[in-house]
């Protein structure tokens, strides 16, 4: 194996092609923004854009977790109910802690919430991998379980933070800002940055993509497939918990409708962001962009007077399909 050096192997100069593919969701977003601005000048006001950015935080954070699960070839339908369950438990814990409301109380409750999230994810992961059941079914099952637990905890009503002082202390986590940037936005940027780092720069991330690409190859390469899969669900659980940390201070309550259909939104954000449902790819920033697209579409619908309230769902559905069409045709062209 000597004479090989003749083969001159060019460095990967073809970055441009990949870039355009990854850029597709951002371009779709830009088009939407222009469209929105044309419909209603208020749309591009700083206040509105900050509202939209802040609101998309929950879905964006959850969808970042979903990117891991989907990249490894899994699926998690339980995230919405899981969010409600974590929120409910967290509030009950805060209500139960008593004592003077301090930052410490909140911090402790936050830690517990993260723990619960990780455990919920672990449950999904273990049942999926150890039981070798389709994740669709497992997480559909846990979706029902978490939702029922919330209803049970709330006795059908709602679970609200009782201590108004604590509530006031916690409120800024949603409504506050740092140098004008709302805290939820900072949180989701941080989560996305960490996630991108983990997915692209660490061994675990590489393993996630390998498992999603071809499970057999991953197994033959000595990758602990079950553990990697399980961990993606734990990551998902943690992300849901982080989303909840930002969610609870907004309305200070969890109800049986909290997080309804968030799973579909999260998965949609992931797919619009360019991650394929069959696994093997994962685009964290695309996912964030996807979440923004969803939120912007909703925002435009309300701000414009184009369609009756009855038909909003139809237009939203159509816009999402069209956005995907545009994106696909763009990434195919190059």
């Amino acid at each position: 194996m000597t004479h090989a050096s003749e083969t001159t192997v060019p460095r990967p100069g073809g970055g441009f092609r990949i870039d355009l593919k990854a850029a597709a969701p951002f371009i779709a977003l830009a088009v939407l923004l222009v469209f929105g601005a044309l419909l209603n000048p208020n749309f591009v006001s700083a206040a509105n854009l900050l509202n939209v950015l802040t609101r998309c935080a929950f879905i964006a954070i959850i969808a970042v977790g979903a990117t891991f699960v989907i990249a490894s070839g899994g699926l998690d339908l339980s995230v919405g109910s899981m969010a409600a369950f974590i929120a409910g438990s967290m509030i009950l814990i805060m209500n139960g802690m008593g004592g003077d409301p301090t930052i410490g109380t909140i911090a402790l409750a936050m830690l517990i919430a993260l723990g619960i999230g990780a455990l919920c994810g672990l449950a999904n992961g273990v049942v999926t991998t150890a039981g070798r059941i389709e994740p669709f079914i497992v997480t559909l099952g846990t979706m029902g379980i978490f939702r029922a637990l919330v209803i049970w905890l709330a006795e059908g009503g709602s679970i609200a933070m009782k201590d108004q002082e604590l509530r006031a202390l916690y409120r800024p986590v949603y409504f506050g800002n740092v140098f004008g940037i709302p805290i939820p936005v900072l949180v989701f940027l941080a989560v996305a940055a960490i996630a991108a780092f983990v997915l692209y720069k660490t061994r675990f991330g590489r393993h996630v993509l390998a498992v999603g690409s071809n499970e057999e190859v991953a197994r033959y390469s000595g990758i602990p497939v079950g553990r990697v899969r399980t961990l993606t669900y734990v990551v998902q659980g943690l992300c849901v918990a982080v989303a909840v940390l930002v969610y609870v201070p907004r309305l200070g309550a969890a109800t049986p409708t909290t997080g309804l259909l968030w799973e579909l939104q999260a998965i949609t954000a992931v797919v619009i962001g360019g991650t394929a449902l069959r696994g093997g790819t994962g685009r964290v920033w695309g996912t964030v962009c996807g979440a923004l697209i969803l939120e912007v579409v909703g925002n435009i619908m309300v701000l414009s007077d184009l369609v009756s309230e009855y038909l909003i769902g139809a237009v939203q559905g159509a816009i999402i399909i069209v956005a995907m069409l545009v994106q696909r045709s763009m990434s195919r062209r190059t």
Partner: protein
Amino acid sequence: QEKSVTMAVSIPAADHGWTGGVVYHAEREKAALEARYPGLKIILKTSPDGASQANALEDLSAQGIDALVTLPHNSDELTDPVRRVKESGVFVTVVDRALSDPTIQDLYVAGNNPELGRVAGEYMKKELGQGDIVVIRGLPIVIDEQRVTAFNAAIEGSGIKVLDSQYGNWSRDDAFKVMQDFLTKHPKIDAVWCQDDDMAVGVLEAIQQSGRSDIKFVVGGAGMKDMIKRVMDGDPMIPVNVLYPPSMIATAMDLTAAGLYDQVPVRGSYILAAPLVTKDNAAEYYFPDSPF
């Protein structure tokens, strides 16, 4: 009193605040009635949608029941299934939503959805006289439509203009979002009607965040305890509430049981008012232990 009687209660699942309250009151009343009448057995079943409620009705009557108390998801859909229960000789009590064929129900305990809309509309007309309001609707189902229709009829002809209306799905989160966007879209809003207290929570939060002061008040509905408390405390943003008590299910169960055991005549209609809760009468409607 030893007569053994089975009463079935079929209600919507606790999927948001108000239905949660219904389930809560039904469970409480079940315990109370079973204690009061030793021979009475109450089977309580919740269903997430109309079709599954039809299923539940079949299952309940298959077990052999003497009376049925039901709060149907939807009048049109459940008329036939309830008719089938009735045909097997069961005493039928319908709560809140009248069936399309009123001859089926032996007893009707009405919460009167149009009344809720009408009362809210009348208040708007009286308080505001004229101005711009936004409406946040519930889910696209019949109840919502009845309330909105009655509301619109009530403000008809006054100077009140509905700038915008959107579905908030009886969810705090969705109402928060919709209100944020309304605030962006409309530079001046005088009042908000949001039809349900759960949504009012989200609306208030959005208004508070925007720091706007043009909104004079928010009218919710259904009598959630936090909201009643605010009315009681004289919160200017929540001057009134329109009562729509989930405890009407308990009223219906109570009346039905009384009819079965006490030989008192209960057939007919029992219309609950949708009274306007104001600072003056709020204490009457405040139940701190209720989950709703």
